[in-house]
């Protein structure tokens, strides 16, 4: 019996307004949207540079790497698992891809090798977490060290660009129809996986295995396979981020990406994805990444000591958890 009296009946506009108000006040996306909008307004007033196409382009390009990894992480967290190894992946994929490019001068080969590393590391992560039954936070924290070690083992110094492939530099710094490539990659990845998560059976199964693995098993869902796909996807997207970063830096550095995993996971949590699995929001992740980028950008524009950029990640995580607790309490959960 669908109880239509619960809907606020009335004109279309009234309904739309109620819906929008509800979204703004009662969902984490709404609250985030509010916060981002407020900060954008503030920065626009404070700094004449902020709301210019050029600055927004810089802002979005800077967060595109975090964003692309966070998209995978959103899916993984909803499935009830986590991947902390994405930080070291930025370094390892970077040094390996740069050296492949230098020796082969073949861009496609370099990118493929980079993505293949993602597949392999994702499979290893899922093997340790799902087969050996080690909590994925612990398993991937261990992988964080192992992959970092591999990056240091691969090269003792940074690997410079000696291949001079022009297209390679374009990945991180070029424009397409006036829009920086990293932003195009970011939006494309976001849109594709927004669709996958909300409209496909795979997306549904991701939610199900995170919400209640036993129920998912009894409903005939291949729980391990779904989670494995989440691990591999996250790791491959992290590799993609690493390739963009590599192009922007134009050198493979074995120490890069420290704290990157916290940034990505923090953004996902801030976006309203639950640490306990089963619920989450791609739009939330998008807005959270935007907030992260805006804060970092604002610190530069307002001439605040840029060391604080690093502290922003910690702040974001605390806000994320507070918002989550507040929302749960109001909705009478737990």
């Amino acid at each position: 019996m669908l109880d239509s009296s619960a809907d606020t009946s009335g004109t279309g506009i009234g309904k739309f307004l109620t819906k929008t108000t509800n979204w703004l006040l009662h969902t984490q996306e709404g609250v985030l949207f509010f916060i981002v909008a407020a900060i954008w307004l503030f920065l626009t007033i404070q700094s004449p540079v902020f709301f210019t196409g050029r600055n927004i382009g810089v802002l979005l390009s800077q967060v595109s790497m975090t964003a692309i990894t966070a998209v995978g992480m959103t899916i993984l967290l909803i499935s009830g698992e986590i991947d902390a190894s994405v930080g070291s992946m930025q370094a390892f994929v970077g040094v390996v891809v740069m050296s492949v490019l230098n020796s082969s001068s073949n861009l496609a080969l370099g990118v493929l090798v980079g993505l293949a590393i993602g597949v392999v590391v994702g499979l290893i992560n899922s093997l340790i977490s799902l087969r050996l039954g080690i909590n994925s936070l612990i398993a991937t924290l261990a992988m964080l060290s192992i992959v970092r070690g591999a990056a240091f083992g691969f090269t003792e110094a940074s690997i410079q660009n000696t291949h001079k492939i022009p297209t390679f530099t374009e990945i991180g710094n070029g424009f397409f129809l006036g829009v920086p490539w990293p932003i195009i990659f970011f939006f494309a990845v976001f849109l594709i996986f927004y669709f996958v998560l909300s409209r496909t059976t795979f997306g549904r199964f991701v939610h199900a295995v995170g919400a209640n693995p036993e129920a998912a098993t009894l409903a005939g869902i291949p729980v391990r396979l779904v989670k494995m796909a989440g691990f591999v996807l996250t790791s491959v997207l992290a590799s993609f981020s690493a390739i963009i970063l590599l192009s922007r830096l134009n050198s493979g550095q074995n120490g890069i990406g420290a704290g990157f995993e916290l940034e990505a996971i923090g953004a996902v949590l801030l976006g309203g994805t639950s640490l306990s699995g089963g619920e989450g929001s791609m739009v939330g992740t998008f807005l959270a990444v935007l907030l992260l980028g805006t804060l970092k950008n604002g610190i530069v524009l307002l001439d605040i000591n840029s060391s604080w950029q690093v502290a922003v990640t910690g702040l974001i995580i605390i806000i994320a958890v507070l918002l989550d607790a507040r929302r749960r309490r109001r909705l009478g959960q737990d």
Partner: protein
Amino acid sequence: MSEQQALLQLTGIAKEFPGTKALKGVDFSLNAGEVHALIGENGAGKSTLIKIIAGLYQQDAGTIEVEGKAVEFHSPADSLEHRIKVVYQELDLVPDLSIAENVFLGNLPKKALRAVDWQALYSRTSELLLDLGLDIDPEVPISALTVAQQQLVEIARALSRQAQIIIMDEPTSALSQTEIESLFAVIRRLQARGVGIMYVSHKLDEIYAIADRVTVFRDGEHIATEAVVNTKHSDLVTWMVGREVKDLYPRTPAKRGDVLLEVDSVSGGNIENFSLNVHAGEIVAVFGLMGSGVHNLGRLIFGNMPRTGSVRLSGEEIHAKAPMDAIRKGLGFLTENRKSDGLLLPLSVKDNITLVSVNNYANLMVINGQEERRATTGIIDKLSIKTPGIAQKIRYLSGGNQQKSLVGRWLLEDLKVLMFAEPTRGIDVGSKAEIYRLMDDMAHGGMGILVLSTELPEVMGIADRIIVIRQGRSAGRWISRQEANEQDLMTAATVQMEKVI
């Protein structure tokens, strides 16, 4: 008696959740030394009221008074402070800690330097347990206890805090008959000490066995409060349902077709060499007591528990590895723990209902939203599931409507046989008949139904054939329910097997 000041007085309590008014200004009072039963169908608002008293939810309106003083509960600690203890249906004990640690959790006896006084802890726990008629080592971990024993531990926990108000939420839902009787003995002892007990239940017989007064809620409203001696069974049902319920068991004979499910010498868990078969158009019931293996049987057949022996559906072997294969071949299974084994709490009613069948509305993994919504709405109408919309999160539905959604999940799949463990557990009187009618319909539609139940009246009411299971083995078979009687079935289920050394 009426002059006496109530131990607990709730007045005009209201609580609203997104999309539902769970309580619409209800009253409830509890006197010292009284057992006051609260009954109502699922969704009547009982659980919400309990959670308000426990300090888990805050009411939107209304007052709570303890011994005449107005109080406000902002957290469970506030409620405990006023010596109120809730014993939940799903017990909230820490499985890996000992009985004693659980009893005194948050309240451990201390020696100098805030070190735990283990000696005092164990001896005081032993005293409390003996007082409740439980003679067991307090150092044993909770996980080693039966559900009935765990419940007594919860009560001991209440006593350790000198609780004066104990709220029991469906305390007997997982207990055997003997265990229920010993629980009642404990309740009477508590009563004699002046403890007030709020007893929430579905089972009307229990109300007559134990309660002094009874209050009925329906759809979040207070319907009646009466002394139990002044009420008739039929009054209670009418108050709860809002209409008269007749014909609880609508089973009509259906045409028996070919054999669909063949279970041949299946072993695993505590089950040994169990065989049975189910034909099209048939409802077969396996009856057994708690612990007999009656529920595990379903898991073995479904492939959710390692087994030996063979299971065939329409002649095709079902692999023992994962339920996926069983489902693909046309076997469905609703477990007895539908909440923990079935619900996806953070997901919508729609996503819960179409969990198994979602592939049917998808093309290359892309879900056709319109088709999925149509299927969901169909189930919601068919099973009269009360929800403000298909996008409502299922956690906000009442227990009974959650149950119905899970039943609906399997109706969308083209099944040959449905295994249904405890089909009406947690389902209210009004909906029970609907569930039985549904099973009857399915049988008439050519499906086979296998019921796994610990409820004798239910088995007697709906089954075409009955098999009794005892200690994992077949303990008797009846080829029609007319030939069976409750006594024979109970005897078969309970008589101790000869001990062979």
